């Protein structure tokens, strides 16, 4: 764990000196602020439900941008050789990298904290769905970041990692789109696999352990695969 935190800490520091992190953060805040204002003006409801629902789409693109450099850049610059010849387990490297991106994402979410404060100042929001909504966004974000970490392990090119990442996150989000055309067993599986089918309960203030477990399993599976990819890179 000590190694994981050391790697996460170094990576967070690298985020703060890289323009990418600032640009992505600024873009996310701008878009979400615009959506917040627009939705509020149109619906005149003291809820973040519609906003959060829309943010998921943005997240599909933002997460791979935050993770693209994590392992790709280490492989390109050769610093991975230092990490992998230090007394550190491969999974500690992967976990540390992912934690750093999760930390940054949590920070971004924190910066949106003034939306509920505005609602509270001028209206009477239902706090349950707001809190579970944030929890759901963090879980979903963590899952997307884990998928992005996986694609970043696959290549030494950040752009390729980002493109593969967006492809994977969008696919994982929309995989149930065709489920109504498929037969019963397949449609059930597709719906279960889809990231989106586990998300919207959170926005209604419902926390289902099955949904939480689903996201956690996807995170573990993606990080496990990323570790294996890193390991097989040694064998080349």
């Amino acid at each position, binding site marked *: 764990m000590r190694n994981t935190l050391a790697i996460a800490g170094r990576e967070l*520091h690298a985020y703060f000196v890289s323009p990418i992190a600032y640009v992505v953060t600024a873009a996310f805040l701008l878009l979400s602020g615009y959506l917040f204002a627009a939705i509020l003006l149109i619906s005149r409801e003291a809820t973040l439900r519609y906003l959060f629902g829309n943010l998921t789409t943005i997240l599909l693109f933002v997460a791979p941008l935050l993770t693209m450099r994590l392992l790709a850049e280490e492989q390109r610059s*050769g*610093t991975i*050789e230092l*990490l992998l*010849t230090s*007394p550190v387990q491969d999974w500690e490297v992967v976990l540390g990298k992912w934690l750093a991106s999760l930390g940054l994402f949590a920070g971004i979410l924190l910066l949106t904290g003034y939306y509920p404060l505005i609602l509270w100042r001028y209206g009477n929001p239902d706090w349950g769905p707001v809190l579970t909504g944030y929890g759901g966004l963090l879980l979903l974000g963590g899952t997307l970041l884990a998928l992005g970490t996986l694609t970043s392990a696959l290549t030494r090119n950040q752009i390729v990692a980002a493109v593969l990442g967006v492809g994977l996150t969008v696919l994982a989000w929309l995989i149930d789109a065709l489920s109504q055309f498929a037969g019963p067993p397949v449609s059930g599986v597709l719906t279960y696999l889809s990231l989106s089918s586990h998300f919207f309960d959170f926005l209604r203030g419902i926390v289902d352990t099955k949904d939480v477990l689903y996201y956690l399993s996807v995170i573990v599976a993606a990080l496990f695969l990323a570790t294996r990819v890193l390991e097989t890179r040694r*064998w080349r």
Partner: protein
Amino acid sequence: MIEVENLTKYYGDLAAIRDLNFRVERGEILGFLGPNGAGKTTTMRILSGYMPPSAGTARVADFDVFDDSLEVRRRIGYMPETVPLYPEMSVRSYLAFMARIRGVTNRKGQVDAAMEACHITDKADTIIGKLSKGYRQRVGLAQALVHDPEVLILDEPTIGLDPKQIIEVRELIKELGHERTIILSTHILSEAQQTCDRVLIINEGEIVAEGTSQQLTDRLTRGTLLHVQVAQPGPEVIAALSRVPGVTGVEPEDGGSYGVTCAQGQDCRTAIAATVVNGGWGLLELRAIEMSLEDIFLKLTAEDTATPVLDEQTEQTVEGR
């Protein structure tokens, strides 16, 4: 300290190294000498635990590099050929990070000591991306030292440096070698001779020669080649040079130059100079020709394998007559 047995590594179908066998004793500086593509980096990557061998074993401090990889990694400091650094970090924070993931408890003290040893204390707070190549190389060395490892593995530590920096880094390595076991790779013969206690010559993935720097020097200077240039060349010059004691061959070249071979262990330069001057031919130049790595390989392989073949052929021709 390091024992390598039948070490083999394939990249796909290509054998980068084949059946390497060697040992490095505690406190020794071993030079790994070979041209590009010889398999130096591959060997070092296996020793450092970066990648597993295809066959054979390597042990560092009695730990297998594959089975006890973490134990091995704790004991070695490795500087890869590319000297990978995080350009956005300051020297101090970079070294502190490397110390941390290698489990150093007294981080401040160790980082300061490593910076001192590599003479980079004055750059402690500089961002690595802004350092010159020479300084980066030293940061790479400091990184390999920061956890005070028993074994140092340095892949071409002087590549890309200017002559002054090369001398500095070589001195530094010799200093470090007082307490540590070091393997360093190079493709420069004189570097291996000057810096290392023992040299291992590797070509196309195989060890072609091994010995102390002195042995190697003796072996290679057997039959030194001299370059002699005179103002008035002529057949009498060749005749006179051939009569100089110790000279085994004279080859005329362009522009009044001669390639003169001397027998092993003999320095015939004084005698040659005297002969040319006495003959009144005007000595313009007289120098020993340094062997390139290619010459060395030709020579070593000729000694080891080609010589007996040649003898056989000569005998046959003699019989045939």
